């Protein structure tokens, strides 16, 4: 039907109709169509800068594909996307676990396409992990690249990977950005990922594709675990990440993930099992890192998990209130905080420059001398210091425990909760570096919306925090002792930036802790969008401009 319509109307009328439908929410938006066109042209333009001679080492890369009754319309694009690779030194290993005779034959025939394609005939279907393991066993390459049987690669995927290997010879795990491709071959939903973020990885498997891992590492962790089928890649990534190899992120879209109705339907059928597999993988991850916490899967969002870290019993926490504003506002804030926060199991101490009346549950100290912050830090007895702005109110009671739990982790520099308005518009989600400047992330976006950087509700590692509300381990202040003694120390963005860059700790926006920010002024609503022509948010996007803008076809 659609093709008939497309062929009857001239292009200009068609565009008008499409825009009209998009406005009514009945079809793909203009944004989505623009993206698809851009991606399709970028496919060809990408190789502008490419010269294979700049590569010093040219390792053999084995692409492993577990095949199970792959339909021809997916198999052929997948195989030819590998055949079309600019980088020559690869091998394609297809593990054929098909049960249908026709699919068996079809996959076997792929061997004739290129001498670098090998098909491993399996006696029976061993499941996704088992099939992949067979392919890995047969692979000869130094690196293993994972490709699903209905997805495709961009032409420069392997070239970019090898370029990254040349720049980082120690790299153990390499991943790239990705987007989705539908049955009509249209590209959509780009996902631009952050550099390696351990805290995001415990929330969702954001790495997924395109994934290349050094073979030794896979052998070391004992291949894929078939008891984790459905979350087997998540399990593998967590295991590898715990070995602390060098992890490299390629800031380019190198992978098209197929949207199929069939696969989602299958997902629904085995969903509880998949969810459990993910939870188990995360529990193992905590065990390996000797961390204690609860893991749960988010019910309404498949693939999302939630880790709550336990803090030591009766840990002392200092809440520092009233840095800005008046005694009145500080009083109000402290009251509402205490009323709506569950402080069981924590020794709470409140520090403020003003004399506050605290009803129960917490000790109280006034610090009068100037400069306030330095004196407050010196007098505070808590292991974890929480600095709080007066304009916030807790959304639920767990926020303090969540925040203390994450701030206790050895890898974490400072942790901040997600700040939002009561309607759910984000007001603070940390800062990220863009072209040498720090800029805010997701401000104005709804918490549960989807952007090209993923969901704002994901806990993330960021370059710096705004400093409105944050938790800090006392131990992390040791880097800044001299400044504190000198006086006039402030927790500005530079402080957080130093934590992450100079001292190599991770700043976290921990979205399990959410606070409502009370503002009188209406927020300027922003939309996070993907526009290849615009430089936006990350320096990573600038890379996308290196392709010539002239369209080639």
């Amino acid at each position, binding site marked *: 039907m659609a093709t008939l319509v497309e062929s009857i109307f001239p292009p200009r009328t068609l565009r008008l109709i499409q825009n009209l439908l998009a406005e009514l929410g009945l079809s793909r938006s203009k944004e989505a169509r623009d993206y698809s066109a851009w991606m399709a042209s970028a496919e060809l333009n990408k190789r502008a800068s*490419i010269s294979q001679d700049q590569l010093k080492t040219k390792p053999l890369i084995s692409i492993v594909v577990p095949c199970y009754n792959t*339909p021809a*319309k997916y198999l052929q694009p997948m195989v030819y996307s590998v055949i079309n690779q600019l980088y020559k030194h690869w091998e394609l290993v297809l593990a054929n676990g098909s049960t249908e005779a026709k699919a068996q034959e079809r996959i076997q025939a792929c061997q004739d*396409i*290129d001498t670098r394609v090998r098909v491993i005939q399996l006696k029976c279907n061993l499941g996704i992990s088992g099939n992949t393991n067979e392919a890995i066993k047969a692979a000869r390459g130094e690196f293993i690249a994972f490709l699903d049987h209905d997805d495709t690669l961009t032409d420069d995927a392997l070239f970019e990977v090898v370029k990254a290997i040349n720049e980082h010879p120690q790299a153990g795990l390499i991943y790239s950005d990705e987007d989705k491709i539908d049955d009509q071959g249209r590209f959509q939903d780009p996902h631009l990922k952050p550099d390696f973020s351990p805290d995001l990885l415990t929330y969702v498997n954001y790495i997924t594709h395109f994934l290349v891992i050094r073979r030794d590492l896979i052998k070391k962790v004992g291949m894929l675990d078939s008891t984790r089928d459905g979350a087997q890649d998540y399990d593998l990534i967590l295991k590898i990440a715990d070995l602390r190899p060098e992890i490299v992120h390629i800031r380019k879209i190198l992978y098209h993930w197929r949207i199929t109705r069939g696969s989602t339907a299958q997902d629904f059928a085995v969903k509880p099992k998949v969810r459990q597999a993910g939870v188990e993988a995360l529990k193992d991850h905590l065990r390996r890192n000797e961390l204690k916490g609860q893991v749960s899967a988010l019910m309404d969002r498949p693939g999302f998990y939630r880790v709550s870290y336990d803090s030591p019993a009766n840990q002392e926490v200092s809440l520092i209130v009233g840095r800005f504003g008046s005694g009145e506002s500080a009083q109000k804030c402290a009251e509402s905080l205490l009323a709506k926060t569950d402080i069981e199991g924590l020794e709470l101490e409140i520090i403020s420059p003003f004399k506050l009346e605290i009803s129960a549950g917490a000790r109280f100290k006034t610090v009068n001398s100037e400069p306030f912050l330095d004196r407050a830090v010196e007098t505070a007895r808590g292991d974890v210091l929480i600095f709080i702005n007066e304009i916030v109110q807790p959304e639920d009671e767990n926020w303090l425990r969540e925040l203390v739990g994450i701030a206790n982790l050895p890898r974490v520099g400072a942790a901040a909760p997600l700040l939002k308005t009561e309607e759910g518009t984000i007001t603070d989600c940390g800062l990220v570096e863009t072209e040498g400047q720090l800029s805010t992330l997701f401000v104005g976006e709804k918490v549960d919306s989807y952007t090209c950087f993923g969901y704002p509700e994901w806990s993330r590692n960021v370059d710096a925090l705004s400093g409105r509300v944050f938790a800090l381990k006392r131990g992390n202040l040791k880097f800044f002792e001299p400044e504190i003694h000198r006086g006039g120390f402030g927790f500005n963005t530079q402080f957080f930036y130093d934590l992450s860059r100079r001292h190599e700790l991770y700043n976290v926006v921990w979205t399990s802790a959410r606070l409502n920010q009370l503002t009188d002024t209406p927020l300027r609503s922003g939309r996070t969008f993907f526009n290849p022509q615009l430089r936006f948010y990350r320096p990573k996007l600038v890379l996308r401009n290196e392709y010539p803008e002239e369209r080639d*076809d």
Partner: protein
Amino acid sequence: MTKVAFVIVCWNNCDLLNECFESVRSQSYQNISIIMVDNGSQDGSVTYVHQHFPAVRVIETGSNLGFAKGNNVGIREALTDPAVGFVALINTDARLERDWLEKIIEFAQQKPKGAAFQGTTLDYFDHSLIDSTHIFIARNGQATQSHYQKRYRYELGPKKVFGVNAAAAVFSRAFIEAEPFDDFFDETMFMYLEDVDVATRATVMGWDNYLVPGARAYHMGSKSSGKNPGFSLYMTFRNNLSVLVKNLPVPLLIKMAPRMMRADWQMFRWFRRQGMKKESWKMVQGRLAGLIYLPIVLLKRRRLSRLTTIDPCYLWSLMEKGY
């Protein structure tokens, strides 16, 4: 090392022969034989080649058989030598880079199911422009030469493509022998679109055509065909229908039909607007003549359909851009 036979068909282009043959003779890949098929030239081409390139085997057909028949004679002759693994077809108005064949054969050795290969063919007069990278049948049924007159800014390929342009291309012996018809190029077509026909056949039979990176050739382009636009239009539109009906799966033909009608109507209107009344009727005549050929074409289709293995969805996606 596999032997490669060059087949060059010429007809009254004596002035071009020196450069063409020189570039073939000086290829870095040396296991070659050269066959020239002379379609009854009047300008002394044969004596010229005998004098200057004594190693070239010359076949004189005596009259102008057209592109398809001429090449078929040459290919048949080439395949009599069992050592020949590939046949390279070169137009007389093309010139090859020294490593053209070496690059292509190195690439082709890796592809057991490779039918045809071409490098990037550049414009002879302006090397910064592309003459063709591949050919394909677009979704509106029109045969298209991809990247024609686009700027050559960077290396293209490797790519699996819909088809290759026979101006300078290498065909594998395995494919020529696997193909169901006695004539490699369809002789009922006489001129135009024979290479599209072969390309489509290879693709639907599940064989692969490739654009090979780094292999450059130079092509003057439609120098000879520009002489008579009415005739070329007539032949193109006549053969177009045969190519489509002979090769493509039925679901695709149905999908294409409305697009084809619209494209034809637009073309017809364009000619009228340009004041080219005669040409516009030539077009219609071509389509009608195509209909007359349909019975023969359908017979051939029956033979071919047994060998068709390609998935229609994948073929449809190839018809968007040719790769």
